[in-house]
């Protein structure tokens, strides 16, 4: 099989707390993967290691055959769970910034997504609401033709209208040649787009399967299964 991400016996420890414990996962190319788990299960830690802003304590991780570094950062499009753009920027600056740093950035698509999200390119980043910020960040991240998209809680804390816009943007702009990893605990809203599911529990992989197979086997929705596992 063709794996874009290979994780082998990966652990991350903060002093006496194990955030990730001996995780081994292989992620196939061209799939949308949901990493599910409650707060503190290790989702964000795993994502940060994939994006190269956190170092593992043990184990190995390869993205497109390379350890996280300059190359992997050029092929991974990352949406953090916070407002990460420089506050002095306006939306136009942010688009120019992405265009300058990422060869795979499609400026035209970015402006189309801005229209879709009803965002004004002259708005200052610091003046945007939580929902607008989330939509802008997603527009930037999805405007790249990256090999891997990593979206950390893309719909957390936004109103239902913005949530629908974000979900539609993800579905419509997903590139079949790419892999998309999404973490969330709002499972009901997002489960329909996941092809594979990884349940993380206390830093370990509790279950990793194809979403459709899981539904058929357990005769329940992923959201219900989530509640059964973590409830």
């Amino acid at each position, binding site marked *: 099989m063709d794996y874009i991400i290979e994780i082998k016996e990966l652990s991350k420890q*903060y002093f006496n707390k194990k955030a990730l414990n001996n995780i081994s996962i292989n992620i196939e190319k061209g799939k949308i993967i949901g990493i599910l788990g409650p707060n503190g299960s290790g989702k964000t830690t795993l994502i*940060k290691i994939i*994006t*190269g*802003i*956190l*170092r593992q304590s043990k184990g190995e991780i390869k993205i497109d055959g390379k350890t996280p*570094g*300059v*190359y992997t*950062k*050029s092929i*991974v499009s*990352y949406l*953090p769970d*916070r*407002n*990460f*753009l*420089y*506050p*002095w920027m306006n939306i136009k*600056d942010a688009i120019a*910034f992405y265009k*300058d*740093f*990422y060869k795979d950035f499609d400026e035209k698509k970015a402006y189309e997504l801005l229209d879709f999200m009803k965002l004004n390119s002259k708005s200052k980043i610091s003046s945007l609401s939580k929902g607008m910020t989330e939509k802008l960040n997603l527009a930037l991240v999805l405007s790249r033709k990256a090999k891997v998209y990593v979206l950390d809680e893309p719909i957390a804390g936004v109103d239902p209208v913005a949530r629908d816009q974000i979900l539609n943007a993800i579905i419509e702009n997903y590139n079949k040649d790419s892999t998309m990893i999404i973490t969330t605990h709002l499972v009901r809203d997002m489960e329909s787009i996941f092809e594979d599911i990884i349940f993380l529990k206390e830093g370990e992989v509790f279950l990793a399967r194809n979403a459709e197979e899981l539904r058929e086997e357990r005769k329940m929705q992923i959201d219900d299964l989530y509640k059964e596992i973590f409830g």
Partner: protein
Amino acid sequence: MGKYIKYEIKGSYKFILGIITILLVAFSLIQMNIYKLSQQSNAVQNLKVTPFITGISGLVVFGAFLTAFFYIIGSFRKELYENRGYLTFTLPLTGNQIVGAKFIVAMMWFIILGLFVVVYNLLLGSIIFSNDWIANMKDIIQLLREILNQGTIALGVLGILSSIMTLILIYFSITVSRVSIRNKKLGSLWFVLFLILNGVIAYVILKINTIFPYYMDINVFEISHIDNVNLDNVNFVSQTVKNMGSPILLNDNCCNAYINITGLITKILITIGSFLGTGYLIENKIDL
């Protein structure tokens, strides 16, 4: 790296412009007051006020540079402790490129501020005090020729090198502090670390200067042992410190300077090492 430099400038130019505006207003007021005083006939009064005005000018320059300095350090610290780091450290850039860009922009702002202070004051002075611009400029160029001898150039080069080393050591201290202590509240420990590092480095360089007292005569670029340096007309201070590991020896009229070459090389190596160390830590050890 050029692109990152561009965005560093975009993100900070408004603040530097603010400092320049304050400097512009402050020096205009100072020079106008000097002019007013010069028009008064009370020489005794002028004599009393002149040092005060000079002091105020010095404080304005010091304040402006200090503000810029803290802003630049704060901007570096924000990358490591605030959300913007999620953007900076996921860019496909090496640690050295990020630190290098920040360093280049910081130095650029200091040079611009310095040039502004000098050029604006010279121009304003020429306008206020005289109508004869060309004659004034000739005087200023002549004055600069007199001031810029080998001694002042050597002192200037050492001063610039020390400033570069200080800035890079601060970057290094902030990064080491961030890598070792995740708690933001304890993030100010970088300052303690910086003081310790600075002290240790000063001591090491002094020792190296003493153990290897080889001085370069910057008049002829020849290196010789201190015993072979012609100290006949080396000034009093240099005579006193010559056996104490002084980084520089000057003669009486500052027209000849001897720089301790081993100390200088050590300083350059420490600066390069701190720069590469900061880049390495940012690329390989930062946990956001």
